[in-house]
C-alpha cells in the first residue's frame, strides 16, 4: 500500500512535467476555416490594434482564420522556428529579416508574390532593399520608421528666424545663436540636436552624406570623410559650450526623454530629430509648445540629402517551417495592402506601401505626417548596416570617446574602422 502511494506521488510529480508541453491543437476552426497563427511583438495598445486588424481580416474571410499572439520576447521566435512549433506569420523588423534570412529561416516572399501576382510597385526602393537578401524579398514591409526634424518656433523667432534650416550649415549657425547658458555656464537651451544620441549617430551623420557601411551593407565605412566632418561639427559645438556642460544637459535629456519633463516639451531644445509619434507626445504633455516639423537638412554641397534618415520597417514574414504557408501569404498580402490603412490610422505609424503616401486620412491623422511622408518620397532612407549588431555596439562606444573628448573624431573613427574590419574578417 505504502509502495503504491509512493509510486502515485512520484507519478503525480513527473507526469505533469512530461505532458506539460503536450497536446495537439486542431488547425481548422469549427466552421471549417484553416487556422493561421500570427506572432507579433507588439504589446499594450499596439497589440490591441494588431488584434483589430486580425478581426477585420477574419471577418473578410471564409477560408482562413488568423489567431494572433503577442510575443514581445523575440528569443521565443527563434526557439519556435528552431523547433516545430513555429507560427505561420511573424512580425519583425527589417534588420531581423536580414539576420534571420542569413540563417535561412524565412520563405522567399518575392517568389511567393510573383506566383500570386503581387504588385511589387507598391514598394519604393528603400522598402525593397531593406527586406531583401541576394535580390529576393523575405518579408513584406507594413510600416516605416523615419526620423525628421521638429523645431521650436518660439526659439527660432527669438533669434530672428521664421523658417527652419535646409542645410546643416544653416542649422549650426542657428544653433549657436539659440543656445543659452546660465551664470554657472550650464546650458539652458540646446540649439544643436545632440540629443537623442541615436539620432546623433544616424541622422546627424547621414545629413552630411556620412554612412556606417557601404552600399553593400557589409563593408564598414566608419572613417569616411563625411562621418568625420559631421563629428567635427558636433565636437565644435560641444567644445564651445563645454563638453561637461553638454554631457550634463544630454544626461538630463535622456533621463527625462518622452516624459512631461522632456527638454523639448519644456522649451529647452531648438531642434529635435525624432519620429512622427513625437508630435502626439507634444500634444499630450505640453500642448503649448509652438512647434513645427521639417525635413532633416542636407548640406550646402549636397542639398539633395534633404529628408535623409534611417529607414526601418515592421515587416511580415513566413518562417520556412510554417505549417500553413498559403494562409500565411493570404494574410500578409491583405495586411500590407487592403488592411494597411486602418491599422496605420490606429497605431499612428507611417506606411511602407507607397500608395498611402498621399492618403488624405493618414496625412490628416498626425500633423507631422506631411513632412515625414515628403521625406519618405525622397527615397533618402538609409538602411542600418548589415554588419553584426556588435558593430553598432562598437560604433556607440567610439562615439562616446569622441563626445567625451577622449579621442579626436579622426582617431576614433580610424580605430573603429580597424575594429570593424576585424569583425568582418
Amino acid at each position, binding site marked *: 500500500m*505504502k*509502495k503504491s502511494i*509512493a*509510486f502515485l*506521488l*512520484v507519478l503525480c*510529480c*513527473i507526469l505533469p*512535467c512530461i505532458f506539460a508541453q503536450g497536446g495537439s491543437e486542431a488547425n481548422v476552426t469549427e466552421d471549417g476555416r484553416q487556422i493561421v497563427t500570427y506572432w507579433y511583438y507588439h504589446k499594450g495598445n499596439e497589440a490591441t490594434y494588431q488584434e483589430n486588424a486580425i478581426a477585420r481580416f477574419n471577418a473578410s474571410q471564409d477560408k482562413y482564420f488568423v489567431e494572433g499572439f503577442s510575443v514581445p520576447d523575440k*528569443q521565443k521566435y*527563434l*526557439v519556435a*522556428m*528552431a523547433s516545430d512549433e513555429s507560427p505561420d506569420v511573424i512580425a519583425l523588423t527589417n534588420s531581423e529579416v536580414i539576420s*534571420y534570412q542569413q*540563417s535561412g*529561416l524565412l520563405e522567399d516572399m518575392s517568389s511567393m508574390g510573383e506566383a500570386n501576382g503581387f504588385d511589387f510597385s507598391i514598394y519604393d526602393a528603400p522598402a525593397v532593399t531593406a527586406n531583401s537578401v541576394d535580390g529576393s524579398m523575405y518579408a513584406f514591409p507594413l510600416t516605416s520608421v523615419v526620423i525628421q526634424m521638429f523645431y521650436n518656433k518660439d526659439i527660432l523667432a527669438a533669434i530672428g528666424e521664421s523658417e527652419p534650416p535646409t542645410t546643416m550649415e544653416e542649422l549650426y549657425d542657428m544653433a549657436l545663436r539659440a543656445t543659452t547658458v546660465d551664470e*554657472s555656464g*550650464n546650458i539652458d537651451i540646446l540649439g544643436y540636436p545632440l540629443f537623442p*544620441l*541615436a539620432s546623433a*549617430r544616424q541622422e546627424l551623420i547621414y545629413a552630411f552624406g556620412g554612412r556606417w557601411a557601404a552600399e553593400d551593407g557589409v563593408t564598414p565605412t566608419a572613417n569616411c570623410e563625411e562621418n568625420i566632418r559631421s563629428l567635427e561639427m558636433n565636437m565644435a559645438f560641444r567644445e564651445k559650450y563645454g563638453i*561637461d556642460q553638454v*554631457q*550634463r*544637459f*544630454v*544626461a*538630463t535629456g*535622456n*533621463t*527625462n*526623454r*518622452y*516624459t512631461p*519633463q522632456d527638454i523639448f516639451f519644456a522649451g529647452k531644445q531648438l531642434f529635435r530629430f525624432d519620429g512622427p509619434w513625437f508630435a502626439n507626445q507634444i500634444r499630450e504633455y505640453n500642448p503649448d509648445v509652438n512647434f513645427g516639423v521639417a525635413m532633416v537638412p542636407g548640406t550646402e554641397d549636397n542639398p539633395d540629402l534633404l529628408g535623409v534618415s534611417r529607414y526601418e520597417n515592421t515587416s511580415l514574414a513566413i518562417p520556412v517551417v510554417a505549417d500553413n504557408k498559403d494562409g500565411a501569404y493570404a494574410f500578409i498580402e491583405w495586411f500590407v495592402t487592403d488592411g494597411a490603412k486602418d491599422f496605420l490610422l490606429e497605431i499612428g505609424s507611417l506606411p511602407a506601401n507607397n500608395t498611402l503616401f498621399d492618403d488624405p486620412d493618414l496625412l490628416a491623422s498626425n500633423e507631422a505626417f506631411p513632412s515625414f511622408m515628403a521625406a519618405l518620397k525622397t527615397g533618402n532612407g538609409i538602411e542600418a548596416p548589415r554588419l*553584426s*549588431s*556588435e558593430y553598432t*555596439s562598437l560604433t*556607440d*562606444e567610439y*562615439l*562616446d*570617446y569622441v563626445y*567625451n573628448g*577622449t579621442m579626436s573624431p579622426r582617431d576614433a573613427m580610424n580605430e573603429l574602422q580597424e575594429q570593424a574590419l576585424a569583425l568582418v574578417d
Partner: protein
Amino acid sequence: MVENMKKLKLTRDDRNGFLFALPWIIGFLLLSLYPLIMSFYYSFTEFNFISDPEWVGLDNYTDLFQDRRFYKSLSNTCFYAFIATPILLLVALLLALVANRKFKLKGVARTIFFLPSVIPMVAATMVWIWMFDPTYGYINNFLALFGIEGPAWLINPKTTKWALVLMGSWCTGTTMLVCLAALQDVPQSYYESAELDGANAFQQFIHITIPSVAHVIVYQAILNLINAFQYFTQVYVITTASGGNTSTASGGPENSILMYPLYLFHNAFVYQKMGKASAMAWILMVIVGILTFVMVKLSKKATSNAGGE
C-alpha cells in the same frame, strides 16, 4: 564480497526515499547538469541558436583573450568587486552596530535598514537613475546645499562605477542582518571585562567586536565577492532603460560599466555568439572558484586568529 553486496542492498525505505527524490534528481539532471555539460561543449563551438553548433576547438577562448572588451568587462567587474565589497561590508557592519544598540524605535530603524533589500532591483535602479540626474537629481541637489557641484554620475565614464558603488551600499540589508545576528552572539561579559580594564568604545570595537564577528565578515565578503562577479541587473537596467540610457554604448559611457555578466549576455543574446558566451561563463566559473578558494583559506586564517576553531 558477497557480504559487501548484501550491505549495499537497498531497503524499502531507501527505495521509497529515492523515488521521492526522483523529481528533484530528474530536474537536476535535465535543468542543471545537462545545461552545464552542454555549455562546456558549446564553449568549443560556433553556435548561434539556429544553426547546428560547429566545432572550433579553442577559438572562442583565444578570441576572448584577444578581445579588448573582455578585459574591459573583467576590469570593470574587478573594480566593483574589490572596491564595492569592502565598502558594502563596512556600511552593513555600521548599520548592524546601530541596529544593535538599545534605543527607541529600534524596530523601525532595523526595518528601514533592511527595506532596500526587499525592493525589486529593477524598480530600485530606475529610481536611482532619476536620483543620479545631474540637474534635477536628489543627490546633486543635496550636494549643492553644501556648495558642491555634483558630477554627471551616469554619463561621465569617470563616475559611472562610483555611482554603482553608491547604489550598492544602499542595499546592504541582508548583510546587515547577518552581521547583526553575529553581534548579538558576542557575550556581554567580554565588554564588561573590557570596561573594567578601562577600554574605551573604540578599543572594545577593535579588540572584541571585530575578532568576534570576523568569521561572519569574511563569509559575507566571499558571498558579496561572488555576487559582484554576477552583477548584472542594475547595469542592464541602466544601459537599456530609456530613462537611464546615458549612452547608446551597450556598456554605458565608453563601456565604463560593461560588467562581465553583461558582456556575456550581449555575446549570447545580442550578438548570438553562444559559443563565446559559454566560454566566458566557464572562465567566470574558474575565476570565482579561485577567489572562493582564496577567501575560504583567508576565512580559516581569520577565524583561527580570532581564537575560533
